[in-house]
């Protein structure tokens, strides 16, 4: 514990350097704007701005990009509350009660509760990250190829289990992602795979064109501008503070949301989205006045907003300590670190303490910046929201093209982005979630390498995965999750994920 505190102090020394403070601020500001604007999420924002970080060092780059991620969780609530349009996927639940509060003239209070809840949860998440990540990294140093193989398989199975769409659909997306991740030269044998004699494909398909295409362009293709209309409620600055009753009603939801969000954040999957749904369901279940939900319940804003912020921080734990992406956003962040010559994983704490502790410390600072940014600048965000979507999305397409091209100055990457955009549009039409595809793409090289290394170690004996205790434990968890999913199929009952998805869909239709 003492060494952790000393390292954290060192991290603050790094975080408080003027240029690192500036990049933290820039990331938070851009993240908030990304969260505010519908049609562009943190994944697109991070992917598009990744090339901008090439001139920075690894610490500055990860501080700025992470700032975009957790900043977007703050910003998403603004659009949800003022326009009833989720600025970001994890802010869907805030639309319901947040906008209802705004219509009652309590927009300022809703914004303030969302901002304070986000700050409390974000700070809680960072404290937990500080305590959990280093010991987890120490344990992970004992991982060998069989353990990594089992962990990556567990990550995919967990993602499939936690998804509210069917197991088969999620696994299909993961398979497509794995196949895309195997395009290019095979590192172990030197064979070119599926590159069709294109030199650019020899290096494989990058995560940036796929992520920007699927989530940025794909979203634009399926959103005609006439669908994005909404009245913007403009709160007055003097009405920003909640009253005593509202503060009292928000305390426990913020606390519960913080803990729930962090735990879910560690688990693979779109944690920041799932956490807000689960928090809303929890608050409605424990509330003494569940009939108020949907009509402006403070807990309906405080809980989900706290949960999604805490989850976004929790997602950094496996990313930093194990080098395992738990979702597409952390996958892109790992990619960003790799571009700067830093490998996320257990050795990050020991080999790059400046990067790790500087990043952790900057999150304390970043959360404070976001609290200061979100409330006084709400007028600016209202102005931004009034820009018609028809004028915004051409701008986003321009940034997508520029951003993807700047990664490796390859026009093939931009064409891949367009193809992925069309694929993303088609996937949405057939109700497929593209997130597992991106995860599969990122972990494909890791999974293949660790699987093949394990088989080489064991001379082809698959029992190596069952003879090592950590690997065995992880595979047992995989089996339990698969069995639980199969059970619902056999019993033809709806499990908690399907019920939750239906409940949310019903609420959105009703409201």
């Amino acid at each position: 514990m003492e060494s952790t505190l000393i390292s954290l102090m060192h991290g603050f020394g790094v975080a408080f350097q003027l240029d690192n403070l500036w990049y933290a601020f820039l990331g938070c500001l851009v993240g908030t704007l990304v969260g505010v604007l519908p049609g562009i999420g943190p994944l697109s924002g991070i992917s598009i701005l990744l090339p901008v970080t090439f001139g920075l060092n690894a610490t500055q780059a990860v501080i700025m990009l992470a700032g975009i991620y957790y900043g977007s969780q703050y910003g998403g609530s603004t659009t949800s509350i003022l326009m009833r349009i989720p600025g970001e996927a994890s802010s869907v639940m805030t639309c319901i009660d947040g906008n209802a509060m705004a219509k009652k003239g309590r927009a300022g209070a809703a914004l303030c509760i969302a901002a304070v809840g986000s700050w409390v949860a974000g700070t809680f998440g960072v404290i937990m990250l500080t305590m959990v990540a280093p010991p987890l990294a120490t344990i992970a140093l004992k991982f060998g190829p069989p353990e990594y193989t089992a962990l990556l398989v567990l990550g995919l199975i967990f993602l499939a289990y936690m998804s509210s769409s069917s197991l088969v659909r999620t696994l299909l997306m993961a398979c497509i992602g794995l196949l895309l991740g195997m395009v290019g030269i095979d590192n172990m044998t030197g064979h070119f795979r599926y590159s069709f004699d294109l030199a650019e494909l020899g290096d494989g398909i990058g995560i940036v064109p796929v992520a920007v295409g699927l989530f940025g362009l794909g979203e634009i293709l399926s959103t005609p501008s006439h669908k994005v209309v909404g009245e913007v409620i403009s709160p007055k600055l003097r009405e920003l503070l909640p009253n005593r009753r509202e503060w009292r009603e928000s305390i426990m939801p913020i606390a519960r949301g913080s803990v729930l969000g962090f735990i879910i954040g560690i688990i693979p999957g779109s944690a920041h989205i799932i956490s807000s749904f689960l928090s809303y369901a929890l608050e409605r279940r424990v509330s003494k006045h569940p009939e108020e939900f949907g009509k402006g319940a403070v807990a309906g804003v405080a809980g989900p907003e706290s949960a999604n912020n805490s989850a976004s921080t929790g997602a950094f734990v496996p990313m930093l300590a194990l080098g395992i992406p738990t979702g597409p956003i952390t996958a892109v962040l790992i990619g960003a670190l790799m571009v700067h010559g830093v490998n996320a994983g257990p050795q990050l704490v020991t080999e790059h303490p400046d990067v790790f502790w500087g990043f952790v410390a900057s999150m304390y600072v970043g959360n404070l910046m976001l609290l200061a940014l979100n409330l006084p600048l709400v007028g600016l965000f209202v102005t931004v929201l009034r820009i018609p979507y028809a004028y915004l999305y051409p701008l986003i397409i321009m940034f997508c093209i520029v951003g993807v091209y700047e990664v490796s100055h390859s026009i093939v990457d931009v064409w891949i982005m367009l193809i992925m955009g069309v694929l993303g549009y088609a996937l949405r039409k057939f109700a497929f979630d593209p997130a597992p595809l991106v995860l599969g793409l990122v972990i494909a090289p890791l999974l293949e390498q660790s699987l093949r290394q394990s088989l080489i170690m064991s001379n082809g004996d698959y029992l190596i995965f069952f003879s090592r205790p950590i690997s065995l434990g992880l595979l047992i968890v995989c089996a339990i999750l698969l069995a639980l999913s199969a059970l619902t199929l056999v019993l033809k009952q709806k499990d908690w994920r399907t019920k939750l998805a239906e409940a949310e869909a019903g609420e959105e239709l009703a409201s």
Partner: protein
Amino acid sequence: MTLRADHVAGAAFVLFGALVLALSGDLPTGQLSMPGSGFLPKIVATLTIVFGLALMVRARESSPFSEVPWSDGKHAIMVTVVTAAGIYFYTVLGFLITMIAMILALLVIVERRNPLRAVAYGAAIVLFTYVCFAYMLKTPLPEFGY
């Protein structure tokens, strides 16, 4: 039998998996003690086919294919065509000309906005972006005849 959305999606995945298997013909599978470059791709392609078939078998849980909403299809096609043209000319005509033209096309042809306003908006935004990237971020963008 009603054609369902999952019939179509499942069939697409089955075909894709079969295509990958066909393209993997010359990749060595290797042995268990020394897996080759075709080892995992063939396993994953086979799994794709299996899951695609599973999707088709359970297709009655999905909506009929005729009910899949395609009302935004025209918008999607037009945006795709304009973006494709922008990508094609990006390294030929350079950032400034291509992006102004692309934004103009999206605003005037796709969104049917006022052309003068679109020109002013497009030019201002593209020039501002050019200045930010070229001078503030020191990231050169493609020039004409690049």
